[in-house]
């Protein structure tokens, strides 16, 4: 029916089980190889501090990538995550400085995220606004709100309990990394082991068929966005804690990083396809590239070039194995 099939004609020998295995594990395997090569060749790469630093550097992206995966799997799109990170951070910081209560601050941040997410969901699912435009609009509005409430200034945080969250470690792993790991586990289970995840894939694969099969498409979509909002707000609060301030212009361009990580991990923008393991690898690749370039002191201008090249290399490699599969 398409190229894919025609190509497979060319390789009739491929054993389907082997093939499936290759498709499923080539990304992780590729990453393991990359990691080994880098460890051997790049000085200081393979050290506890560096690896922990690397993980810390992708903790926020990782958390949000988990929910973005669901969003993309349901054939939606969310550009507002960067702004939500900023807004949740700013709001949390302001509440914290006014009330001194960490609980209130976190509550306010998460509630804001939930509201933003739900608003996106309602706009897209019920009012049928194109997801790109709807979330572009919320992206602008939420960024505006972040600037307005903070008067354009970063909001400093002096509460030590809050700041410590971003700093403290358990078994040598920083809390943000653990939270991110927890997200991967939770959303991995959600995607693969629950009806929620299956229905998400179903509405991404064929919304009309899913609806006729009894999936409450609109409600599900709102939930997906709402969860995305909450997780993003959490990432924003953690970021605020790590950088000890709520920054209204934080995380600009964050949305593209997150979406790239997902796509790199094999999530289809056309919906219906997602693998949590792939997303994890996508996130790690993004972080590793950044990390290694800094370790190697690559010139800032060449970093652009390199990032582009590596992004391409990663998808091209991934392409090789899916030769013969549908795009």
């Amino acid at each position, binding site marked *: 029916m398409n190229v894919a099939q025609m190509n497979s004609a060319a390789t009739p020998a491929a054993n389907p089980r082997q093939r499936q295995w290759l498709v499923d594990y080539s990304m992780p395997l590729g990453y393991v190889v990359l990691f080994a090569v880098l460890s051997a060749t790049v000085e200081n790469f393979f050290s506890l501090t560096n690896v922990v630093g690397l993980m810390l550097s992708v903790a926020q992206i990782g958390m949000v990538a988990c929910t973005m995966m669901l969003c993309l799997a349901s054939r939606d799109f969310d550009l507002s995550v960067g702004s939500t990170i900023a807004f949740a951070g700013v709001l949390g910081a302001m509440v914290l400085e006014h009330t001194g209560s960490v609980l209130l601050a976190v509550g306010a941040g998460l509630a804001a995220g939930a509201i933003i997410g739900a608003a996106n969901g309602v706009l897209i699912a019920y009012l049928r606004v194109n997801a790109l435009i709807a979330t572009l609009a919320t992206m602008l509005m939420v960024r505006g709100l972040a600037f307005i409430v903070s008067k354009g200034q970063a909001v400093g945080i002096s509460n030590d309990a809050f700041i410590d969250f971003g700093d403290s470690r358990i078994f040598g792993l920083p809390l943000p990394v653990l939270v991110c790991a927890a997200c991967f586990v939770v959303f991995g289970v959600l995607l693969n082991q629950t009806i929620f995840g299956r229905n998400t894939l179903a509405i991404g694969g064929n919304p009309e068929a899913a609806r006729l099969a009894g999936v409450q498409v609109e409600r599900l979509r709102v939930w997906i966005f709402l969860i995305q909002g909450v997780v993003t707000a959490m990432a924003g609060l953690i970021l605020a804690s790590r950088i*000890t301030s709520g920054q209204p212009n934080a995380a600009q361009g964050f949305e593209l990083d997150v979406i790239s990580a997902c796509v790199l991990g094999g999530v289809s923008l056309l919906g219906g396809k997602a693998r949590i393991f792939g997303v994890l690898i996508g996130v790690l690749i993004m972080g590793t590239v950044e990390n290694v370039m800094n370790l190697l002191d690559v010139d800032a201008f060449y970093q652009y070039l390199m990032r582009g090249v590596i992004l391409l290399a990663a998808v091209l490699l991934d392409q090789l194995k899916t030769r013969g599969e549908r795009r």
Partner: protein
Amino acid sequence: ADAVKIGFLVKQAEEPWFQDEWRYAEQAAKDKGFVLVKIGVPNGEKMIAAIDNLAAQKAQGFVICAPDVKLGTAVERAARRNNMKVISVDDRLVDGSGKLIASIPHMGISGYAIGKQVGEGIAAEIKARKWNMAEVGAIRVAYDQLPTARERTMGAIDALKAAGFAAANVIDAPQAKTDTESAFNAANIALTKNFRFKYWVAVGLNDEAVLGAVRAAEGRGIKADSMIGVGIGGAKAAENELNKPAATGFFGSVMISAKEHGYQTSVNLFNWITGKAVPPAEVQTRGMLMTRANQAEVRKQMGQ
């Protein structure tokens, strides 16, 4: 002992200013024999990651121009956690409650002070041209979402007001992005709304912003003789403009010394790490107004 390795973190690696700072820091590294690692840190998240990265590379300290001054506590903590020495450059860091962070030595400019120099330079030129202040409109190409940008332009406007400029004659032109085209579009509208003025002056956060205003004015026939635009930075964009055969509305730029900032901070940090000298708690550098008339001289004085 291991060779000394220091980081130099700047908030906007693409900006010519920081490229220059890095270039001079490299020179210091060569002169003093230490290793320099340059990393761009466009936001708080990347900044923390870069500091951790430096630690993994076993750097002993870093010079930083943070993406936001309120990141002070984060910088301080990250440095302490990794046992590194830190000096701030350009922008002075503060903590959560807005207090200067005493433990981090600083060398830099005050955005507000630089802005004032812009305003003063313009005011002096208005006088020299014997314009009637009431007939002059001032465009503030604004990008208030960036705190330094606001400080600079406000400094300029305050200086103009101090010289007798009417507050009502100041027109804000908010640019959507910090490039010349956005400044052009914003200034264009400001000019449309205020055709009553005979003369114009323009200020902005950098040379590119002022350039946009100057181009927009030219589009309406407001040329060099009725326009005074003064930028900030003095790098290539300003140089191009000041070296055009005919004068344009771009009167000059307040040049700041990337050499001093880049070279001296790195040397100070090196000395601190090697135990030779503790850096001074604060050094304020000054900018100089560079115009067609005094270009060569200013460049020489600023050492570029």
